[in-house]
Structure formats: C-alpha cells, structure tokens
C-alpha cells in the first residue's frame, strides 16, 4: 500500500510539472515581446540588466535579450530573426544599413579597446602606438591570442592587422580561441600572450589576471563604438517594429545616456561605457 501511495504521489508530481511546463508555452505575450540581439559585452557588464527593466516599465514591451557575438547578432538581423540590434562593429553595420537590412541606426555609447599583455612585455610594446605594437608582436614572434569568433572585438583586431600589412593567419605565434572575451583573457593570461580586449571585460576579469597589465591604450583608433538599430520590418512579418523603434529612442534618450555615464563607477571606480548619442 505504502509503495502504491508513493508511486501515486510521484506520478502526481510529474503530471503537475508537465502541466506547468506546458503552461509557459501557451501564454504567448505576442506583440508585446521583442528580440534584441546583442554582443556579450553589454550583457556580461550588467548594463542591460540595469536598463531593460526601465524600458519594460516605461513601454510595456518585454525584451528578450539574446547575447551572442556581434557577428551572429548582425546575421540574425540580416535574417530577420531579431527586432533590434545593439552591436559594436560600425563597418559591418554600415553594410547592413546600405543593403536595407537594418534601419534607424543610432550611435549610443562607446568605450575603448586596449591591448593587454604579460607584465614581462617580451615584445616591448608598452606605450607604443597601436600599429607599431602589433608589428613588434609579430616581429618578436610573441604570442598573440585572438578571439577568432567574428565578434566586434575580433573584427577590430583584424582591421588593425590589415592596416599593418601583416597576415597573422596560420602563424605559429597567433592563437585563435573561437570564444568570448572572458575565456580569451583567461587563455592569454594562462599562456602569457598579448590580446586586444574591450576595457569593460578586462576590468571585470582583472582580479583573475595577476600577471597581465594594460600595454596600449588611449589611441583614437581604439574607440569601441556601439550602435542601436531596428531590423527592417520588411524582412519578416513577425518583426515587432514598434517595440524596436521604441527601443532605439529609449537607448538614445537623455535619461538612459545619463545612466550609461555612471554605470560601473560603483564597482570599478570608473565608468564602463561613455554616453555618445548623436
């Protein structure tokens, strides 16, 4: 009898869970929902956690954030799989704008890229201009760790290599992780290599990177500019363009720009992003 009762209870629980599981699939918020495809840095820094509840409260739209690399976020825009994008690869974004895949593209904020490396600085790049630093790394055959994941940071790194005329592809000193910034920083620290990173992620990981320090910073070419944009509603009839438009306006609004300016100061003693709306 006891066993049977236990069995009954177990099946009851499972059935309940099943019902609970089905329930979520049916309560569809429909046109109240929008998909934001963005880069991992905006999510990992915690900035979106701070901004999105405000947006949802103001507009009633619910934002589903899909944090992928900039490359994938842009591809999602191209396919009409997202409603709005928040990315940091101006050249690639411009191409989508030109082809009509995205509209209403607005500058939102920036932070900067930095080159970090082992304290011992085997290639002697500390304080050098960006191009010179990259050239010296190549000349010294010093290890360089690349993200290699088509992210905004990776795209930036490739454009610097291009401007130096060096093709790092296949070189023994050039390592591609194919992973996010955090993982790549860990690989660089573990193997004592140089890498290009956004300052925000570096600050978040600094406590784990004892042997690494900032080598090159402050160059204008290292600006990391974020844009917000709507996916062209013609791409798919499922696109929620009203929500996307509201999101673009929200991101460039004075209130949000103000929040961006002070975000991260409490934790890191310096802001992670700077407001930059046009």
């Amino acid at each position, binding site marked *: 009898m006891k066993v049977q009762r236990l069995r009954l209870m*177990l099946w009851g629980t499972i059935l309940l*869970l099943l019902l*609970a*599981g*089905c329930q979520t699939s049916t309560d569809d918020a429909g046109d109240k929902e929008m998909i934001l495809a963005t880069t*991992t840095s905006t999510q990992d820094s915690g900035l979106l956690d701070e901004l999105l509840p405000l947006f949802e409260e103001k507009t009633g739209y619910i934002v*589903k954030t899909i944090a992928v690399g900039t490359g994938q976020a842009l591809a999602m825009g191209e396919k009409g*799989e997202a409603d709005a994008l928040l990315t940091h690869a101006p050249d690639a974004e411009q191409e989508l704008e030109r082809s009509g895949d995205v509209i209403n593209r607005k500058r939102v904020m920036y932070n900067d890229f930095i080159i970090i490396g082992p304290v011992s600085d085997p290639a002697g790049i500390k304080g050098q201009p960006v191009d010179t630093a990259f050239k010296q790394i190549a000349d010294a055959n010093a290890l360089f760790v690349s993200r290699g994941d088509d992210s905004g940071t990776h795209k930036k790194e490739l454009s610097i290599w291009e401007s130096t005329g060096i093709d790092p592809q296949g070189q023994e000193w050039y390592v591609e992780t194919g992973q996010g910034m955090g993982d790549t920083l860990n690989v660089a620290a573990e193997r004592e290599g140089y890498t290009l990173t956004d300052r925000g992620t570096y600050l978040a990981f600094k406590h784990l990177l004892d042997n690494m320090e900032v080598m090159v910073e402050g160059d204008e070419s290292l600006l990391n500019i974020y844009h917000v944009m709507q996916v062209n509603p013609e791409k798919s009839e499922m696109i929620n363009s009203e929500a996307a438009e509201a999101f673009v306006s929200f991101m460039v609004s004075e209130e949000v720009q103000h929040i961006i300016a002070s975000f991260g100061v409490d934790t890191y003693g310096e802001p992670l992003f700077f407001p930059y709306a046009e």
Partner: protein
Amino acid sequence: MELVWEGLQKAIEMLISGDPEVFQITWLTLRVSLTATLISVMLGLPLGVFLGLVTFPGRKLVVTLINLGMGLPPVVAGLWITLLLWRSGPLGHYALLYTPTAIIMAQVLVSLPIIIGLTTAAFQQIDPRLRLQIKALGASKWQSFLVLLRETRLAIMAAVMAGLGRVLAEVGASMMVGGNIKGETRILTTAMVMEVSKGNFDIAIALSFILMTLAFLITLALTLMQQRKRSA
C-alpha cells in the same frame, strides 16, 4: 581550490537568503528537465518495446539509427531545432524560439533515443521461452506486456535515469534554442556558462553545487523506486 570552498559557501548563502533569481532558475531547470524526460519516456517506452519485441524488414537500420541518436551531440540537436523554429523556418509562426518549450524540444531530441535504445535492449534480453510461457498461460496482449514490463523494470528505470541525466547535463542546445534569457529561459547550466564568461567563478561553482544536489535528489528518488520494487 579556495574557489570551491567559496562556491559552496555562496551556494548555501544563495539558498538560505532565498535569492529569487536562483530559485527561479532552479525551478525552471527542474520543470524543463522533468517535462522533457517525461515526454521522452512516454514516447520512447512504447517505441522501445515495439523495437525490442517485433521484427520487421528494416528493423536493423532503425535500431542502428536509434543507437546513433543515443550519442547525438546536443549542439547538433540545438542547431536543427533552431532551423525549425526560426521565423523563416517551417514552425516559425509559432514563435517558439527562445522559450522554455524550445529547450524542452531539444532535450527530448537528445534523450528520446537513449530511452528507446535502452528499452529496446532490455526487451530483447527477455528469454523467448518466457514469452512463450506467458502466451501458453493465456495472457492477453496487454497482460503479457505488463508482465514483460515488470520483468524489465530495472533496466527501464536505468533508461529513465540515463535520459534524465542527459537532460540535466545538457547546455549547448539549451543555450542555442533558449538564448539564456534572464527570467525566461535561463537554466542552471546556461547560467553557469554565462557566469564563467563574466569571470564570476564563485557563482558558477555555487550553481554547480545546486545542479548536482538537484541531480542527486532526483536520481536518489528514482533509485529508491527501482530498488524498492525489486525487494517487493
């Protein structure tokens, strides 16, 4: 190693303080995993019994495919489900991508072959003379099925546990089709991946303790059920 200790402390702290986000993530993990396993069992058990007892042309090929499916990389499952659920895909208009339902679909895809495969193997192991004997005693089809089910219950419970284990451990497909959306599709495994990429190893380790505790409790319950029936 210090991190492990910190993580354990953090886990206890998060549970005691009743961190609503952690509870929500844990609850969703439980709900998704149990639902997926239940669906897999309901579909996989009859199919496995059928494949184990009935012979038909092409059966070997089907069994081979099921056995292949037992090792289906979750990322492959995730990719297929994504293609299916994309707005531009065949099921796009249901807007299921980035919902718990999408995760359940991917989890079923990876656990179903395990349940089918292990059930098939269990039923094939039954002594053919037993089947003859049951028939000789005049059992109806349904009755003989119940007798055989009783005969294979240990192996079938093991199949359920293997399927559940696969589902609880899965991360790649859940990340892809769920999108790790805060408050909606974030489950313990995808939250762990995210915390690691944020450099929050202590939180990731804390979540790992919660996941392992959850897995332990469910497996314990199933094992008790399995072993108790045996002695009964």
